[in-house]
């Protein structure tokens, strides 16, 4: 799946920007005007002679299709891939009525034979190996087939041909429904979609109403972006447009029905926190980049719809409770948001689902008090460092707080940043730059904060460091939105006066910058939060674009091979990797690999159990193998929690990027000596 992500990202980056802008505009229009567009579609399709049925519920859709099949004496149905029909459980309804259903998409046919549900919306059988499939064919069809993808494909080509010829009814899904004339568009590679729409005497297209776009111009935006985002190509092998006079093998018009399914979609359109999901084009980019989905797969991290988008669509088509069962696998890394071509804020929507479900655990509630723990630890550093290092107390921490005893913890320096800096910074009313330190640089190792201020001043900035709360990310991550809101309001209140005077806000912690610039405006919706968001950037990104480092020779003698780890939240904040570029510009030898998330995801990766340390450590080991294979001697990153994970699993020294910059500038400060990273 890593290779799928790389291919997709490359394909998306090569598209003209107006294609993505056009797509976003089209999908936003659908999101905001769903009922109107539905009416337009029904009207135009009927005017062209199409039989249209609007199903308010899954049951209505099933009743229509099953009764149609019975009335027409249908014995066998062939289907092309359709997640909407999975959502309805159409196969079961038809089978119960004595009608044979044959899936014709290769992956869907395989999972049908296996009696399983799809594990991925694009590659339904990706969880099965070639040996699994060959064994399945032997068991179910009594035919020995060589366990190679080519031989298996040849088998199914022959095996399904009779079904294509003899089927009475074809059922398709829809990637797009064009409101201006009622045409349905399906995007496929195998050719089964074309056979399903051509061979039988009756054709039914089943489409969720969110697939509607208003015009052909908008449809073409979907058609250009969807294959790029899904499979990294300009186009799939086939784009089939189906209308009331669909092409038929019989040389005559087959009976054609369009079933448009609501099943919660109109209601979602009125929910502020869920309606963005209606933009989804089912490219699966979010699945392919999700660190937990890559480890767990769709049968665990999924319902009918799987992965990150699956959480939202389970909330829409079933309910929040069902969605919250799988929402727990979301670690709020936001990689899905960075990959989504229609910019659905999936992590925030999942966070709201967690909030709405009320299923949060006591341990999760305690993890949102991470800042209090850090403040206490900074007041009693020796005690806390000892407690964190003792086997007995780690067992206690595990059973009470749920912090896995194997998780390496950051040590406390003692004291805090505000004491170390002094009142001058705390009480400054205006400055070029306001430094927002977040929990780690305030309480755990304020040396980072000290270095940040020194580096900014060396670059000619005046700096203020007003007292702020932590970013509140654990509250967002675990779905405690009222607490997240309180924290956001407090921080925005503190920062807005500086922003109004033209100050920039900088962070050394990427998650803090993400909260200020992305999450707070959506949680609060206020003008002040938007102003704070616009003024916020990561400190290293600021230096990369505007910094004027003093021209000094580098003071360090070794030029170790450095590996740069790109934190997840940083991806949303700036294009490219400004930290890596800056380090190279300063003369450091830097390499990187885009493997996605390191797996710790804040406090999530500290938790005991599958939804925590077990998955986190599996991801961490895989990432560590990749890093160590580069021959790097140390790792640079900005994220304090990522540094924990990388240090634990690579055994290498991990340093905050600001340390390299400070080194270059000749800023030496004993108080800033690295404690953890």
């Amino acid at each position, binding site marked *: 799946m890593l290779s799928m992500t790389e291919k997709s990202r490359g394909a998306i980056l090569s598209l003209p920007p107006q294609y993505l802008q056009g797509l976003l505009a089209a999908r936003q229009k659908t999101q905001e005007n769903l009922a109107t567009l539905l009416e337009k579609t029904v009207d135009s399709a009927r005017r062209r002679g199409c039989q249209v049925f609007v199903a308010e519920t899954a049951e209505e859709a099933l009743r229509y299709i099953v009764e149609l099949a019975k009335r027409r004496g249908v014995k066998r149905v062939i289907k092309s891939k359709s997640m909407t029909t999975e959502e309805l459980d159409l196969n079961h309804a038809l089978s119960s009525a004595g009608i044979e259903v044959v899936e014709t998409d290769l992956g869907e046919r395989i999972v049908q034979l296996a009696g399983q549900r799809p594990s991925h919306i694009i590659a339904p059988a990706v969880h099965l190996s*070639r040996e699994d499939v060959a064994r399945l064919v032997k068991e179910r069809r009594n035919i020995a087939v060589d366990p190679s993808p080519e031989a298996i*494909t040849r088998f199914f080509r022959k095996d399904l041909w009779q079904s294509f010829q003899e089927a009475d009814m074809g059922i398709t899904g829809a990637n797009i429904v064009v409101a201006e004339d009622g045409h349905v568009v399906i995007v496929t590679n*195998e050719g089964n979609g074309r056979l399903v729409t051509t061979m039988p005497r009756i054709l039914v297209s089943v489409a969720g109403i969110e697939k509607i776009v208003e015009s052909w111009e908008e449809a073409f935006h979907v*058609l250009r972006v969807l294959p790029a985002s899904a499979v990294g190509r300009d186009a799939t092998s086939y*784009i089939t447009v189906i209308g009331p006079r669909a*092409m038929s093998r019989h040389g005559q018009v087959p009976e054609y029905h369009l079933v448009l399914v609501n099943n919660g979609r109109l209601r979602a359109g009125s929910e502020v926190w869920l309606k963005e999901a209606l933009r989804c084009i089912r490219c699966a980019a979010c699945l392919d980049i999700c660190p937990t989905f890559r480890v767990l797969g769709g049968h665990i991290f999924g319902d009918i719809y799987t992965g990150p988008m699956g959480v939202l669509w389970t909330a829409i088509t079933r309910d929040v409770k069902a969605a919250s069962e799988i929402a727990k696998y979301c670690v709020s890394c936001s990689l899905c948001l960075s990959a989504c071509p229609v910019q659905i804020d999936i992590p925030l929507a999942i966070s709201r689902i967690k909030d709405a479900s009320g299923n949060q655990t006591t341990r999760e509630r305690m993890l949102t008090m991470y800042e209090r723990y850090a403040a206490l630890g900074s007041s009693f550093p020796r005690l806390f460092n000892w407690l964190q290092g003792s086997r007995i107390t780690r067992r206690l921490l595990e059973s009470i707080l749920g912090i896995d005893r194997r998780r390496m913890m950051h040590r406390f320096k003692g004291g805090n940043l505000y004491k170390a800096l002094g009142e001058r910074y705390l009480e400054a009313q205006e400055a070029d730059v306001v430094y927002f330190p977040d929990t780690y640089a305030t309480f755990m190792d304020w040396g980072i904060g000290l270095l940040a201020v020194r580096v900014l001043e060396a670059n000619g900035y005046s700096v203020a460091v007003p007292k702020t709360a932590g970013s509140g990310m654990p509250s967002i991550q675990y779905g405690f939105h009222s607490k997240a809101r309180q924290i956001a309001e407090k921080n925005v209140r503190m920062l807005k006066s500086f922003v109004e005077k033209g100050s920039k806000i900088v962070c050394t912690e990427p998650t803090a910058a993400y909260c200020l610039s992305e999450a707070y405006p959506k949680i609060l919706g206020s003008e002040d939060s938007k102003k704070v968001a616009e003024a916020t950037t990561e400190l290293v990104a600021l230096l990369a674009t505007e910094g004027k480092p003093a021209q000094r020779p580098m003071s360090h003698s070794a030029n170790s091979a450095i590996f740069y780890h790109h934190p997840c939240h940083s991806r949303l904040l700036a294009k490219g990797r400004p930290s890596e570029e800056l380090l190279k510009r300063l003369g450091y030898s830097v390499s990187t690999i885009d493997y996605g998330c390191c797996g710790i995801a804040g406090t999530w990766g500290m938790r005991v159990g599958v939804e925590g340390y077990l998955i986190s450590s599996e991801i961490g080991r895989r990432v560590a193998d990749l890093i160590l294979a580069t021959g790097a001697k140390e790792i640079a990153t900005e994220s304090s929690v990522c540094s924990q994970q990388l240090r634990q699993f690579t055994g290498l020294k991990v340093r905050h990027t600001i340390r390299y910059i400070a080194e270059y500038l000749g800023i030496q400060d004993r108080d800033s000596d690295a404690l953890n990273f």
Partner: protein
Amino acid sequence: MFMQRVYILYIVMAAWLKGEAPRASATRGIDSAAKNLGYEFLEKCRKNGFKTAYVERPEALASVFSEWAAHWSIKSLMIAGLSGFLKETIFNALISVKKEITCLELPDLPSDLTLFRASSLGVFRVYAGVAETGGLIVLDDWGSNLASLIPEYTVGLLEAGEVVSDYWALTSVLRQRDIGGMVIISGPSSTSDIELTHVIGVHGPVEAGVIVTGFELDE
């Protein structure tokens, strides 16, 4: 052999009756802009996995078919939307390579299409090509849908002047014509469903070709 001669005679008589004369040479040149777009289109098609050829003059068409057919095991031919001259040219090219071929001209259809599935070549008229994505536009008028779908091998034919730059160039066509359906074909059929391994040839054609001509196809 006798039936082949009868078939050829049928083709020639039908063309004569319809007023079509077998073409001996190009009647009209294609301008350089159209030619360049045609080459761009073919380059994209090649990257998508098509076999491709640009044929300047009608006389060269037969040799392209002979060359491709030499690598394909073909026992039957499905044709849709082509003029009498083209049908004759293609048929002659094939029988020069293969001894016996069963022909089917769409939209006439047998009830069992199995004969035209394995070891079959489908040749069809393409409505337009899309240069940006290497896509062949097939409309529902001439049975080109089946000829581009059922056989194991397929070849689409279009003129250089019928290549458009991108999908949006088709918008007016879609609005003016009352299309029943349309297919945009951008490669042979494929899948990555098993271990994400890319395999060519699933339910649609295993190999697909496209020929862009520098002469008119429908005269």
